[in-house]
C-alpha cells in the first residue's frame, strides 16, 4: 500500500482527544507558483468571510434555516479541492463551502441558497450549500451521510467506462465512515478501480459525538488496507500539506491506479450548526485550536515568511470584502420562490404536478401571520423585524 504524507503531525493523538493541536510543520513547497499560493489564500479568506457574513444575516433572521460553519477547516476544504482540474468532479460535505468555491460556486449563489431565494441554485428547494452543478464539477450532497460515496463511485465509473481522464473526489466526515453507504461505496469503487479520491475530514466531532465513539480504529487511514486501496494522511490545517496529499491521490487516480483514502486531520471549532452550544466540548479545547492552530493564521505566517508582501495580502482581503458586499446586495434583492414552482420538475415527464383541488387558482396560501416565528426570516420584512 502506498501510504505517504504521514510525516505531518496531527495524527492519532490530536484527533483522538481533539485536545492537542498538531504542531505547525511548515515546509517550503516549490510546486505551486506564488500566484497559486495567493489563490489558496483568497479561497480560504473568501470562505471564512462569507461565513461571517452569513452569521450576520442569520442573526438578522435572513437565513431561513440552519447555518453550518467550516471555521478552522478552511484549509482542508480549499487545499484538497485545489488539487482537482476543471473537468474533475467533487461532492462536498456540509463543511466544504471552500471546496465548492474553488470549484466555481459563487458567493451570491451561497447567499441566495441560505436565504431561500427564488433564483437560488435550487430555487428554494434545498438548504444551505446543498446544491451542485455538473458543468462546473460539483455534485450536491444530501443529508443522509455516506450516500455520496456510492454516487461518486458511479460518477467515476462513468469516467472509466468512457475512457475519460477525469477524477472524482468525495468528502466524508469522521461520522460518515460509520455508515453502510461509506463502506459499500468505497468497496465498490475499489473493486472497479474507479478514479476516486475519498477524503475523510477528521474534525473531532460528528454533531456532538467524539471520534472515539465513532470508531476504534486508531486513525482513518488504517481502514484503507482493508479495502486494498492507497492512503494519504495530512495535517488538514496546513493548506499546502493538504493540497500535496490530495494531489498525490488525484494523480494516482488519473493514472488508473484506483481509489485513495485521504485523511485530513483538522478540528471543528463551531458546533454542528449555529444553534449548537458545544456543551459537550472540553473546556479550553476550542480556544486552544483557535489560538495555536488556525489554518489562515498559519498560512499567513508562512506566506509572509516566503516573502509575500502585506499589500498583496491586503489587496486580497479588500477584494474578498468587496465581492461579499456586492453578492449580499444582489442576493438580498432577489425575491422568494413562486409557490407554484413547488410542483414543477419532480419528473422530466410529466413536467409538473397539478395543484390539489383546494389549491386550484391559488399562488400563495399561508398568510404571513400564520407562519411560526421560528421559521425565521422568510417573512421577517413583513414583521418589521429587520
Amino acid at each position, binding site marked *: 500500500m502506498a501510504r505517504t504524507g504521514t510525516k505531518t503531525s496531527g495524527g492519532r493523538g490530536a484527533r483522538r482527544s481533539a485536545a492537542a493541536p498538531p504542531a505547525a510543520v511548515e515546509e517550503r513547497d516549490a510546486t505551486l507558483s506564488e500566484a497559486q499560493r495567493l489563490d489558496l489564500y483568497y479561497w480560504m479568506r473568501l470562505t471564512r468571510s462569507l461565513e461571517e457574513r452569513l452569521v450576520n444575516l442569520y442573526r438578522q433572521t435572513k437565513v431561513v434555516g440552519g447555518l453550518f460553519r467550516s471555521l478552522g477547516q478552511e484549509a482542508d476544504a480549499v487545499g484538497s479541492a485545489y488539487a482537482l482540474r476543471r473537468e474533475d468532479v467533487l461532492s462536498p460535505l456540509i463543511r466544504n463551502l471552500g471546496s465548492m468555491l474553488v470549484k466555481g460556486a459563487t458567493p451570491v449563489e451561497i447567499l441566495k441558497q441560505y436565504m431561500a431565494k427564488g433564483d437560488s441554485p*435550487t430555487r428554494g*428547494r*434545498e438548504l444551505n450549500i*446543498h*446544491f*451542485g452543478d*455538473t458543468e462546473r464539477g460539483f*455534485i*450536491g450532497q*444530501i*443529508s*443522509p451521510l455516506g*450516500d455520496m*460515496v*456510492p*454516487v*461518486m*463511485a*458511479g*460518477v*467515476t*465509473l*462513468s*469516467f472509466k*467506462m468512457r475512457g475519460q481522464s477525469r477524477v472524482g473526489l468525495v468528502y466524508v466526515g469522521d461520522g460518515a465512515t460509520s455508515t*453502510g*453507504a461509506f463502506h*459499500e*461505496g468505497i*468497496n*465498490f*469503487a475499489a*473493486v*472497479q478501480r474507479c478514479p476516486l479520491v475519498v477524503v475523510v475530514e477528521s474534525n473531532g466531532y460528528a454533531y456532538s459525538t467524539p471520534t472515539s465513539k465513532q470508531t476504534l480504529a486508531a486513525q482513518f487511514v488504517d481502514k484503507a488496507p482493508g479495502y486494498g486501496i492507497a492512503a494519504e494522511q495530512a495535517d488538514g490545517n496546513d493548506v499546502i500539506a493538504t493540497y500535496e496529499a490530495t494531489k498525490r491521490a488525484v494523480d494516482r487516480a488519473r493514472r488508473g491506479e484506483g481509489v485513495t483514502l485521504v485523511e485530513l486531520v483538522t478540528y471543528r471549532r463551531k458546533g454542528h450548526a449555529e444553534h449548537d452550544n458545544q456543551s459537550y466540548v472540553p473546556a479550553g479545547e476550542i480556544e486552544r485550536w483557535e489560538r495555536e492552530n488556525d489554518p489562515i493564521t498559519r498560512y499567513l505566517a508562512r506566506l509572509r515568511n516566503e516573502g509575500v508582501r502585506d499589500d498583496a495580502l491586503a489587496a486580497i482581503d479588500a477584494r474578498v470584502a468587496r465581492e461579499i458586499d456586492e453578492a449580499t446586495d444582489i442576493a438580498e434583492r432577489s425575491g422568494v420562490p413562486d409557490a407554484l414552482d413547488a410542483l414543477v*420538475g*419532480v*419528473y*422530466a*415527464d*410529466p413536467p409538473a*404536478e397539478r395543484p390539489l383541488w383546494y389549491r386550484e387558482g391559488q399562488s400563495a396560501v399561508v398568510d404571513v401571520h400564520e407562519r411560526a416565528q421560528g421559521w425565521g426570516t422568510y417573512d421577517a420584512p413583513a414583521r418589521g423585524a429587520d
Partner: protein
Amino acid sequence: MAEITYLEAIREALFEEMERDADVFCLGEDIGAYGGAFKVTDGLLAKYGESRVIDTPISEIGIVGAAAGAAHMGMRPVVEMQFIDFIANAYDMLTNYVATARYRAFLPCPMVVRGPSGGYVRGGPFHSQNPEAGFVHTPGLKVVYPSTAEDAKGLLKAAIRDDDCVLFFEHKYLYRRIKGEMPGGDHVVPIGKARLAREGDDLSIITYAATVYKALEAAEQLEREDGLSVEVLDLRSLAPLDDDAIDATVKKTNRVLIVHEDTRTGGLAGEITARINERCFEWLDAPVLRVTAHDVPLPYAPSLEDFVLPQTADVVLAARRLAAY
C-alpha cells in the same frame, strides 16, 4: 413469429436496448458470468463484455448509488436486484437520493432497478416480496409491474429510455409460465397506461402482475357459473397510475374489486379506492372491495403461503358479493 417467455422478453429488451444505446449498461450481483439468479441476463456478458455487464459486490446501496452517479453523467444503468426483496437495503438511496435528485438538484437520474418479485413460488419471507407500495408512495420514482411477456419487453424498453428512475418489478411466477408473441419493430409500451385484459359489463376487477391471471380465471368461472360479465383492468404502471382507465371502467360497470398480491394495509388497493371515491363516487352501485394478501410476512410452507396469498376462489367469492350488493 414464435412465442417467447416473459423472462426471455425481458432479456430481449436488454439486448435490444444495449445494442441501440452504448450508454446502457447492466450491473448487479451474479449477472455476468453466471447470467443472473434466474438467467435473465444470460449471454449479455459474452456479447457486451465486463465494462457494460458488471458483476458487483453484494452491496445494494453501493450498486444503486453508483447507478445514480453514472446516470448523472449521462449513462443509462440497469440495476438488477437479485431478488426484489433486497431493494429494502437500497431504500435510503432510492427514496432520499435518487427520487429527489431532479427536484432538489436538477440532476437527471435515468436508471432502471429491476428484479424478480412476488410469491406463489414457495420462496419464503425473503424471496417472495412485493415491496412496490413504498416506492409508489415516493414522489420522483416511477413503478411498473407487467403481467404479459409483451408488456415485460415493451415496458422495460420504455423504462430504460425514460429520463427518470423506473423501478421494474418482474413477477418470478410468470417468468417461464407466461409466453407471448412479440410485436415487430421497436416495441415500446408507454409508462402510465393500463391495459384492458378482458372486457365486461357487470363488474370490474382492477389488478396487476400475477393476480391478473387470478382475475382472468375468476372472470371465466363467473361467466360460466353465474353468467356475469367481468372486466379486468391490468394496471401495468403503478406510478403513475392510469386514472383515466380506472375512471372509465368504474363508470362502465359501477362495481369495482381491486386485487393485489401485496399485503393489505397501505397497499395499492387503498389508494385506488380513495381515488375512485373522490372521482367516481356517484357512479358506484356498491362499495369498492379488495382482495389482497393477509398482513403477515410471507411463509414458506405451501399450505401457509396458499392461505396468505389471494387465490382465484377468493376473487370469485368477492366478485359474487359485489355483484349481489
